[in-house]
C-alpha cells in the first residue's frame, strides 16, 4: 500500500450534521419519540442538611394524570454507585439543598409539574455549613486533586529564595462559583423491555453511562443501550452520568412505560456540578529584570460532603515558568453544598487567572513588558518534572500574537489612555492545557457497495467530532472524505472515552486511525486493493498504544490579547477586541477548531466580566441558578474575536499530531481582560467577576 497522502486533515470541512441542526431535524435526547411516554419532574429538597421524615403524596397523586411519586421509601433499590451523587432516592439523608427528594411521574409535562408541586416533604433539619473561607478551620489537604495530580509539590527552598528576592509580589485572587449551563439541560428518556434498558441521554460519553446503568441496576452491559446522538453542549457538566439518567430509568421501571426527564434549568446548579470557588495566593520573587527565582501558588477551594472534587488550580504553576524554587499546594473544605465537578478546563482555568494576573503585576513591578517578561522566564524543560517538552509554542504565540495585535505600540502606563468618557486598556495573558489521551476501540468497514464506515462511541457535543473523525479516517484510508461515514453516539459501537479533558479527537481519532490503517493494509494485502463481496470490517484498540505513554511533557500553549474600554460614568466594561494565538499541534479542521477557540474565549469573557453565583448562607444554595440571574455572555457582549495558530509539528502525540483544543481557549482569557482593565484604569481587579459596581468603586477610590 502506498503511504497516505494527507488531504482531508487540515481542510475546513463543514460539519456533517450541520444541515440537520440548521433545519431542526437533529433530535436531542428527549426529543426522540417514545410512544406512550410519561414525564417526570423532580422535587428538590428545601433544606441544606438533614433527613426526609415524611413525603405526603396524596394530593400529588390526586392530580389529574398523576402516575407515581418516587421517594426514598418506594424507589427501586440500586447497587452502590462509584459516584455517590448517583445514589438518588436511596436514603432519607439530605446532603444539600436541591438534592432530589422525590420524583413525580405523570401522563403529560403539565401534569408532572403540577404533581411535583403538590408533593409535600417534611424534613428533620440539621445545622449547615455552606460558607467557604480560605481560613476555614476544617480545611484539609486531600490525597490528590482532580485528574490525579499530587496535592502539594516543593522544589528548592521557596521561603528563603522569596525572602532574598529583589522584587516580591504577594497577591490573592478569588474566583466565584461558576456554572456550566449548556444550552440543552440534562435530559434522558428511558425505556425498559424486560430486563433490557434503552436510554437516550444527553451526555459527554455514553460508554460511561451504559456502564453506570449496568452497575446500578445489576444488568449485563450488553442489555443496556445508551444513545446520545446529538448533545446540546456539556462543558464538563455531562462528563459523568448525572442523576436524571438514573431517575429516568427508575421511573420507567416503576410506571412500566418510557419516561422522559429533562431537568428544569434551575436544577442544573444543584444537580449537575459546577466550578467551586477558589482563593489563590500567589507569591513571586524575582530579580530586577523580572527573572523568577521563587514561585508559590497556594489554592483553597470547597467540595461537598457527598463526593470530593478538588479543582487543581495550582497545577499550571508547575508547568508555566522557570523557577528554581517553587511551592504549589491545594487545600479543600467539605461543605453542605452541591458537589462541584468538571467545568471547562478545571484547574487551568481558575489557576491561570491567578498566575497570569500575578505575572502581569510582576511585569509592572519590574518595569518589564509583560510579553517580554514571560519570554524571559521560559523554561528549558517542564519545571516540576524536569521532562523535556514534546513541543512548546508559548513564545511563538506571544510573539505572533503581539505582532497581529499591534502590542508594540502600547504605552505601558496605566490609566492614561482616554477617549472622551472612556478609559482604554490592553492586556496579555498566556494559556496552557495538558495533552490527554485515553484508550478506545474503533471499527472500520469497507462497504461492498463502495464507501467506508467507521464506528466509535464518541460523542459530538458540538465539537465537530463526527466531521473530524471522518477526515482522520479518510486520510488513514487514503480516500476522499466524502466516501467515509462516521458513526458515533451509541453505546453498541466500540467503546470510547468521554468527550472531556480536550482528549476526544486524540483518543477517538487514534483508534479510528489505527482501524483504518489496518483495513487499508488488509484490503491491499489480502484482496489486491479491492473490497471483497461481503465487505471487510476491522477493529482496533489503542489500549497499549496509549498506555505506552511518553517521556515528554506534553501541553498546548497559547496567548491572549485583549482591549477593553471602561465607561468612567457608569463603570461599564466593554470588550473591544480579543485575539487568541494557539500552539496546539496540528489543527485538523480549521473551521470547527476556530469555533471551539472562539467559544472558549467567550466563556473566558463571561468569567471575567459576568459570571458568578453566590451561596445563600441561610438556605444553603446557589442564588443565581437561572439564566436571568446567572449572566452568560450574550451576542452584544462579544466583539469580533480573532483566532490564529502557529503550525506545530509534534511527533510525540498521536498519529494525527494533534493536541486538544476544546479547553485552552478559556484558559488565560479572563486574566488578559483583567490585565487590560488594570491598564485602562490603574487598579488591580483580583476578584472575579468584575461588575460595573466594582469598577465604579475602583474609579472613585483612585
Amino acid at each position, binding site marked *: 500500500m502506498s503511504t497516505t497522502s494527507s488531504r482531508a486533515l487540515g481542510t475546513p470541512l463543514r460539519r456533517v450534521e450541520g444541515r440537520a441542526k440548521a433545519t*431542526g431535524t437533529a433530535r436531542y435526547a428527549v426529543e426522540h419519540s417514545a410512544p406512550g411516554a410519561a414525564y417526570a419532574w423532580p422535587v428538590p429538597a428545601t433544606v441544606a442538611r438533614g433527613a426526609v421524615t415524611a413525603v405526603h403524596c396524596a394530593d400529588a397523586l390526586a392530580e389529574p394524570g398523576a402516575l407515581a411519586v418516587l421517594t426514598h421509601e418506594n424507589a427501586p433499590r440500586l447497587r452502590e454507585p462509584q459516584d455517590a451523587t448517583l445514589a438518588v432516592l436511596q436514603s432519607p439523608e439530605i446532603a444539600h439543598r436541591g438534592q432530589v427528594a422525590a420524583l413525580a411521574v405523570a401522563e403529560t409535562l*403539565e401534569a408532572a409539574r403540577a404533581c411535583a408541586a403538590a408533593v409535600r416533604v417534611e424534613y428533620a433539619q440539621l445545622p449547615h455549613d455552606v460558607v467557604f473561607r480560605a481560613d476555614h478551620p476544617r480545611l484539609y489537604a486531600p490525597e490528590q486533586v482532580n485528574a490525579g495530580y499530587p496535592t502539594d509539590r516543593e522544589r528548592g527552598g521557596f521561603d528563603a529564595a522569596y525572602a532574598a528576592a529583589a522584587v516580591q509580589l504577594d497577591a490573592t485572587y478569588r474566583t466565584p462559583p461558576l456554572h456550566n449551563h449548556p444550552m440543552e439541560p440534562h435530559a434522558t428518556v428511558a425505556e425498559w423491555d424486560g430486563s433490557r434498558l434503552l436510554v437516550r441521554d444527553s451526555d459527554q460519553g455514553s460508554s460511561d453511562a451504559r456502564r453506570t446503568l449496568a452497575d446500578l441496576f445489576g444488568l449485563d452491559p450488553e442489555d443496556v443501550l445508551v444513545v446520545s446522538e446529538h448533545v446540546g453542549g456539556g462543558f464538563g457538566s455531562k462528563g459523568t452520568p448525572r442523576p436524571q439518567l438514573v431517575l429516568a430509568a427508575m421511573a420507567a421501571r416503576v410506571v412500566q412505560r418510557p419516561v422522559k426527564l429533562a431537568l428544569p434549568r434551575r436544577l442544573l446548579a444543584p444537580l449537575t456540578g459546577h466550578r467551586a470557588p477558589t482563593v489563590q495566593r500567589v507569591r513571586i520573587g524575582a530579580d530586577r529584570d523580572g527573572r523568577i527565582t521563587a514561585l508559590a501558588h497556594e489554592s483553597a477551594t470547597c467540595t461537598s460532603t457527598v463526593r470530593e472534587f478538588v479543582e487543581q488550580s495550582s497545577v499550571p504553576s508547575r508547568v508555566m515558568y522557570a523557577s528554581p524554587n517553587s511551592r504549589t499546594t491545594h487545600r479543600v473544605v467539605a461543605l453542605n453544598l452541591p458537589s462541584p465537578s468538571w467545568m471547562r478546563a478545571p484547574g487551568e482555568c481558575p489557576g491561570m487567572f491567578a498566575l497570569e494576573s500575578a505575572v502581569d503585576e510582576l511585569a509592572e513591578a519590574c518595569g518589564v513588558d509583560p510579553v517580554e517578561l514571560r519570554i524571559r522566564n521560559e523554561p528549558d524543560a517542564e519545571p516540576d518534572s524536569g521532562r523535556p517538552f514534546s513541543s512548546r509554542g508559548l513564545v511563538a504565540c506571544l510573539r505572533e500574537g503581539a505582532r497581529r495585535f499591534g502590542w508594540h505600540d502600547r504605552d505601558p502606563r496605566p490609566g492614561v489612555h482616554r477617549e472622551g468618557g472612556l478609559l482604554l486598556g490592553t492586556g496579555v495573558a498566556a494559556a496552557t492545557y495538558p495533552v490527554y489521551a485515553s484508550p478506545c476501540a474503533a471499527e472500520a468497514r469497507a462497504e461492498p457497495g463502495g464507501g467506508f464506515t467507521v464506528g466509535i462511541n464518541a460523542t459530538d457535543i458540538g465539537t465537530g467530532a463526527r466531521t473530524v473523525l471522518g477526515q482522520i479516517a479518510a486520510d488513514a484510508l487514503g480516500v476522499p472524505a466524502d466516501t467515509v461515514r462516521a458513526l458515533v453516539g451509541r453505546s453498541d459501537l466500540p467503546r470510547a472515552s468521554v468527550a472531556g479533558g480536550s482528549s476526544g479527537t486524540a483518543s477517538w481519532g487514534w483508534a479510528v486511525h489505527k482501524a483504518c490503517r489496518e483495513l487499508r493494509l488488509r484490503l491491499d494485502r489480502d484482496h489486491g486493493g479491492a473490497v471483497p463481496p461481503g465487505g471487510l470490517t476491522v477493529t482496533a484498540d489503542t489500549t497499549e498504544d496509549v498506555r505506552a505513554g511518553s517521556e515528554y511533557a506534553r501541553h498546548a500553549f497559547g496567548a491572549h490579547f485583549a482591549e477593553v474600554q471602561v465607561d468612567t460614568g457608569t463603570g461599564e466594561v466593554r470588550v473591544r477586541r480579543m485575539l487568541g494565538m494557539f500552539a496546539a499541534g496540528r489543527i485538523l479542521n480549521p473551521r470547527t477548531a476556530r469555533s471551539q477557540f472562539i467559544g472558549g474565549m467567550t466563556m473566558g469573557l463571561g468569567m471575567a466580566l459576568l459570571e458568578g453565583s453566590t451561596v445563600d448562607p441561610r438556605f444553603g444554595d446557589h442564588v443565581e441558578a437561572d439564566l436571568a440571574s446567572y449572566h452568560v455572555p450574550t451576542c452584544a457582549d462579544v466583539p469580533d474575536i480573532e483566532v490564529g495558530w502557529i503550525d506545530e509539528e509534534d511527533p510525540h502525540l498521536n498519529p494525527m499530531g494533534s493536541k486538544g483544543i476544546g479547553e485552552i481557549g478559556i484558559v488565560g482569557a479572563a486574566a488578559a481582560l483583567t490585565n487590560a482593565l488594570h491598564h485602562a484604569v490603574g487598579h488591580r481587579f483580583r476578584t472575579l467577576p468584575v461588575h460595573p459596581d466594582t469598577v465604579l468603586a475602583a474609579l472613585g477610590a483612585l
Partner: protein
Amino acid sequence: MDDESRRCPSSEVRLQVNGTPYRLRLDNRTTLLDTLREHLDLTGAKKGCDHGQCGACTVLVDGRRSNSCLLLAVALDGAAVTTVEGLADGERLHPLQEAFLEHDAFQCGYCTPGQLCSAAGVLAEAADGMPSAVTPVGESPRLDGGEIRERMSGNLCRCGAYPNIVRAVQDTAQAGAAR
C-alpha cells in the same frame, strides 16, 4: 373520584404551523413550545430554560419572533406559527440556514433553531424600519454588526458562536439588500 373531576380544563385550539392547519385539544396549561414539541412532534424549537431567558424556543408567531415557552397555546387560537422546520423551501435552504452552515455559526446546535428564527425576525423588523436601542434616532436601521449584536442578544449561545452568527446574519442581510 369520578372521571370528570380528574380531567384538566382543556380547550380546542386551531393553529397553522408551517402552513399546515391543526385543530388540537390541549390542556390549558400547555405552552406553544410544548404544543410543538410534545403534540406536533416538531422538536426543532428547543427548550433551554422554559422561562423566557434564553431564546432557544424562538419561533415566528404571525411573523413576529416570540419566545414560545412564554405563550400559552390556548391564547393563540387562529395564529400562524413558523418554526425552524418551516424556514426552508423544500430542499432549498433559507439563505440564513446556508449562511449559518458556511460561517459555522453553531457548535452543539441547540440554540440554532432559535437563532435562525430570531434572525429571520430581525431581517423582517429591519426591513420594516423598526429601530432598536442602538439605531441612531430618526434613522432607519442598517444591519451592521452593532445592530445585529443588539437585536440577537435575546438568543443565548453557550457554545459562543456569536461572532460567526453575526457574520452569517450580516451576509444574509447584505445579500438580501443587493437583490
